[in-house]
């Protein structure tokens, strides 16, 4: 199959990839760009382990063909921490025990980050709804929900600062 070049932004860096057009974004991220933080749990969009942000919105990268990312902005779990500082969601997952084996964690975190971007004051139901597409088999979700609640508090606290630093980028 003839390959084609896909140009997109990955974690803030302009990136070109040569790929068969039938490969998924997940395959390109993991196998071509060696960004193995994004995980594959099912390959059919049911488990959410491969969730990344596409122009800020959560998508299951196993269901997105790589060429569909052309000209778009992709954020993976590797791109959340800035200047050696964890994103509040990453921080609270560690502090609150919001992870165990860790395989669902990258996708779960991406869904939670996307939620807090659009709603920094979510109710518990809204949190559960936002992560309902991310299966976790270890935690029973309880501590994940607490971690997102705690992260929301921190995002709100630092909102002004964050808005500035986002502008500066």
């Amino acid at each position, binding site marked *: 199959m003839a390959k084609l070049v896909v140009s997109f932004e990955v974690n803030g860096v302009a990136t070109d990839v040569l790929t068969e057009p039938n490969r998924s974004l997940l395959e390109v991220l993991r196998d071509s760009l060696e960004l193995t933080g994004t995980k594959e749990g099912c390959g059919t969009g049911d488990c959410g382990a491969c969730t990344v942000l596409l122009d800020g919105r959560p998508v299951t990268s196993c269901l997105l063909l790589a060429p569909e990312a052309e000209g778009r902005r992709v954020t993976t779990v*590797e791109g959340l921490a800035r200047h050696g500082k964890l994103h509040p969601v990453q921080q609270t997952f560690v502090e609150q025990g919001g992870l165990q084996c860790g*395989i669902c964690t990258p996708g779960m975190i991406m869904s939670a980050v996307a939620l807090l971007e659009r709603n920094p004051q979510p109710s518990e139901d809204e949190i559960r709804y936002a992560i309902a597409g991310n299966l976790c088999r270890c935690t029973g979700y309880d501590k994940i929900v607490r971690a997102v609640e705690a992260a929301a508090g921190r995002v709100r606290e630092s909102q002004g600062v964050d808005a500035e630093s986002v502008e500066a980028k």
Partner: protein
Amino acid sequence: MAIVDRPETTTAPQTDAPPQRLVIGQRVAKIEGVDKVIGKAQYGADVSRPGMLWGKLLPSPYANATIKSIDTSRARAIPGVYAVLTGEDLPRVVGQVSDTAPAPDEFDVPSRGKQLLAWKKAVFYGQPVAAVAALTPALAEEALAAIEVEYDVHQPVLDVLDAMGEGAPLVQEGVFTETFAGKDERASNVAKLTELSRGDVAAGFAAADEVVEQTFRTAMVHQGYIEPQATLAEYGPDGRFTIWTSTQGQFGVRSGVAGFLKIPPRRVRVVAMEIGGGFGAKGAQTLEPICAVLAFAAGRPVKMQLSRSEVLRATRPAPDAVMHVKLGARRDGEITAVEARFIWDVGAYPGGGSTGGINTGFGPWRLPNFHIEGLDVLTNRPSIGAYRAPNGPQGAFAVEGALNILADRLGLDAVELRLKNAVVEGDRNPSEVPYPRIGLRQVLETVQGHPAWTEPVPAPSRPGWLRGRGMGVGTWGGGVGTSTAHVNINEDGSAVMVTGAVDLAGTRTTMAQIVAEELQIPYERVAASQPDTDTAPFNNPTGGSRITYSLGTAVHRAAVDARTQLKQRAAQQLKAPPDEVEYRQGQFWVRSDPDQSLTLAQVARAAIGSGDGPVIGTGEVTHLLRAPAFAAQVIEVEVDQETGLVQVVKATAVQDVGCAINPTACEGQIQGGVVQAIGWALTEEYVYDDHGRLRNPSLLDYRMPTALDAPNIECVLVEVPAADGPYGVRGTGEVPIVPGPAAIAAAVYDAVGARVNQLPVSGERVLDALAEGGSGMAAVPALSSFPVRSAADIARQAVLRSQAAPPAGGEKLAVESEDYCAEDDA
């Protein structure tokens, strides 16, 4: 290394004032937590090697079919395809690897461990029939499609009761019912019959005021780890295999691969990657041996990664069971007699261990008289494996279900009934293993006083729904086995703990807490290393809730050893007798002259280049007394009257953890177990068509609980110290999955009056039970109605034939389920 007297692990002190502990009991963050949230942690599928190929398996499209021929020539001819193997090729490749060609009939045995690829026939849907290695995943798929297999298709045996019946087709040719008295001489689908008895059952029932007799049924379910099995194998020029894999035990993989390939373990190095969930399933080997064979045959590193449908179709799910329970009790609730028959669907290969479910189901209760039968029955489904407290949730669904019905009939409080019959120290489980110190009574008393049980059931949260509450109890005998650990003291007084254990969900963290506690240094000054089998000290696999208890003991001993050695070095350096030297939180001093002091770092640094050299503490454990854990859960559900849909809205989990080294980790284990039980109880189920094909091999159709299906889960940690092991700790991981299904079924009955004795408790079943006014379950026929010979029959036959004593192996049966991990991989 200095020879020192290694102090034995002390039992946790039982004084009113708890000992002042520095790190034990703290909610410290996971050591590898940051690696996992930034995507740096490396799992099975994340590793690659130069020149790597991709391996894939050809699944059988039939559940029961003779392989008439396999033509691989077209697949082999595809450029970029490096190896194509079928079952018949395996003896040849093994012969090339080991220089000892195995006899072909060695593979002609009913063992899944031997038949990595189907041998002459496929016995379950999705069973691997051929394996290929090619340059890309797409090429590997192309090669699979080019393999031509001619099958002779037979009707599969799919139901355990059918499989036991007269004239049932045999799933395997060479299986004979195994009993305490030896094997039956007739081939049968009943692979094993376990009979456990005590007292006089007839007299027990005669003394009963109430008898409950019910049949229960559960579905085959999957462990549901989110990470599919993934393995990378490489064969080096030195004749050694290196295997990177997602496993619960790298040493088990090493023996498994070396055993299959008939080579010594020194020729295999196994690197256990981070593991994305196992729950028992990754204690068995799925890809490692075949991946090693492919790597050898292809002459290149080979990576294999199961798809989700392969995971569901063809790994090792948990067995479904048909269970008959007859319970007799006096008016006050005291159990007088039990008769039970647990029939396990173990799939297409023998193994699984029926005693586990019996001991877990009946273990919490004092039974003066009982006769309990367990049968392992073969069907044309994937052979089963361990899943968190293997066979416990099924057994408890039946036993706790019967107890809840008994409580209703006698008009007794469900907790009161259980307190009346609860085992205490000195009582014995059905396998006659005596209980050491246990906390069942304390757990039940905690429930009895908890608002989750004492407060009235709240009104339903929405119109058209009804709310109810139920409870159940569970136990797990605890895991033991061998563990070793090293604690290396660095020149700055910090420590590196080295173990050969796989960290499923917090091992490194809790173990580092033990090291920090015993060395009295901050937790942050302990690093945890879990290297490969070449460099790590030996450890049995992580499973059966054995790690914190057994590895914890080894780590504790290693840390105490390191501290003892440090004290000796300090005494040498301070020129004082060792018993004159005191140590506290990084400071050594002479008791009679406190000004004579050294820091831990000074002692450690000086030790490296002088005297007895650097300090390396070692600890090992081979056998501990078991530390059984008990849990009780109170669960509230709401049931939609129109559709029968059940939702769990509240869960309260009370569990004896012995000592919570890290309460966050304990709660995490409990909450995870509760939600797996919710899936088991309400939505998870292997659905087969009449041809034995799995209808729902995806996570869309095999429905595991999402965040919206899970309630808030309150955990109440009870701490009754175990009689052995460090700080009184007990294994925490298995037991929280056990009580849930029975508690949920009881809550449904409390809400709408529907008695559903079959899992999953689907909306349809709730409505059916309401319409029928009963559970709608047919009773299990007595053993005598099947062509199955009991141990007594077999023994009698043997006597009649004047044969010698029962063949060896009968004795082993009794202890098999007591193994550290109820997984008897062939």
